[in-house]
């Protein structure tokens, strides 16, 4: 039986952690991204589990620090931040709300069900500015690990595409 105090603390800690935004894509919270995996409470101590998007994602250290600060702001001190690898993060965990926010921000959201694609397959990515499917890839690797650089042939705008993973 989980006590009401523990349950309330867990919810408060979740709310605080869930408000942390991705330092590279500040319109998305780590909850939208699916980076925030779990919050548990043992003997009054909070443990937050996060998972990296990419193995070498340099934002992870900053995200962990931001979670600690967000918890402290809400009076929750001494929390531990644990990084878990399994199950591996996938863009399928990104919330619909997250996808909408990304598009509004000018980043094409990852295709749903984007597990492993055919290696030399063709992707159709809609331009986040004008909605056209007449787009082409400029570079498989963009300004951060999780993005690729595309261009719209209709409105001529370049845009970031959040890669399927």
């Amino acid at each position, binding site marked *: 039986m989980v006590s009401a105090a523990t349950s309330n603390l867990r919810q408060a800690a979740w709310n605080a952690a869930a408000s942390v935004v991705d330092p590279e894509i500040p319109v998305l919270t780590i909850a939208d991204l699916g980076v925030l995996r779990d919050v548990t409470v043992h003997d009054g101590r909070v443990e937050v589990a996060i998972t*990296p998007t*990419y*193995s*070498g*994602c*340099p934002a992870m250290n900053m995200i962990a620090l931001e979670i600690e600060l967000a918890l402290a702001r809400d009076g929750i001190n001494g929390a531990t931040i644990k990084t878990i*690898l*399994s*199950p*591996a*993060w*996938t863009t399928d965990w990104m919330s619909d709300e997250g996808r909408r926010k990304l598009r509004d921000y000018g980043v094409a959201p990852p295709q749903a069900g984007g597990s*492993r*694609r055919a*290696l*030399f397959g063709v992707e159709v990515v809609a331009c986040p500015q004008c909605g056209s499917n007449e787009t082409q890839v*400029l*570079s*498989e*690797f*963009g*300004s951060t*690990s999780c993005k690729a*650089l595309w261009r719209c042939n209709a409105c001529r705008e370049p845009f970031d595409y959040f*890669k399927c*993973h």
Partner: protein
Amino acid sequence: MATPSITVSETPLVLYALRRADDALILGHRLSEWCGHAPAMEEDMALANIGLDLIGQARELYAYAATAEGKANDEDTFAYLRDVRQYRNLLLCEQPNGDFARTILRQFLYSAFADAYWRAMMASTDATLAAIAAKSEKESAYHLRHSAEWVIRLGDGTEESHRRAKEAVDHLWAFTGELFHADDSDAALIADGIAVDPERLRAGWTDMVANVLATATLTQPKSGWMQKGGRSGLHSEHLGHLLSELQSLQRTFPGATW
């Protein structure tokens, strides 16, 4: 006075994790050498991104090696405080960048193996290795696609790009035999399902490489004598120079932090 190197208790599992970690770190470091020097901005970012993925994979593998060893070593001491003969990476990964074609061919030959390897390792009976594999295979799929597309573009490009791509594949070919290395230390791990038998991956790698080289109008070198030694610490002269740069800060200022 330089910091002395650590000693490592290379149990089969520790050695297994270190060998893969060293592959990823050394190749990742090589790619980082391109930062600011690549032929185009997009490629500068691509090579840096791939290097970042590899160094991330190395960190996870080093952290696991440290846990498996259970001594005072950690991911930093493995990376910064082992000398050349203690490194266990493939000779392929330490080969100098050369020109862009050499770097791309090196990446392709490695990624064609790594992608199949990580996918197979997702079924490892070791939960941590399986978890690292599940992350890494998504990344290696992108690395393989990127490098394969470049191999085709260079090989089937201009006379000059074809000549350079051909020179690269001819030069690197003798280092590909080591991809399939397994020794007595690995045997028990393979029997227990912790490690994959690399021989199982040979046919898939051969097909992938043959197809891409053919599309690139490049001739696959005849399989002859293969160079090996990296897995047991016998390296080319290039690795020492790489480590002198990678380790200089920690060797000069032990324990320095940002």
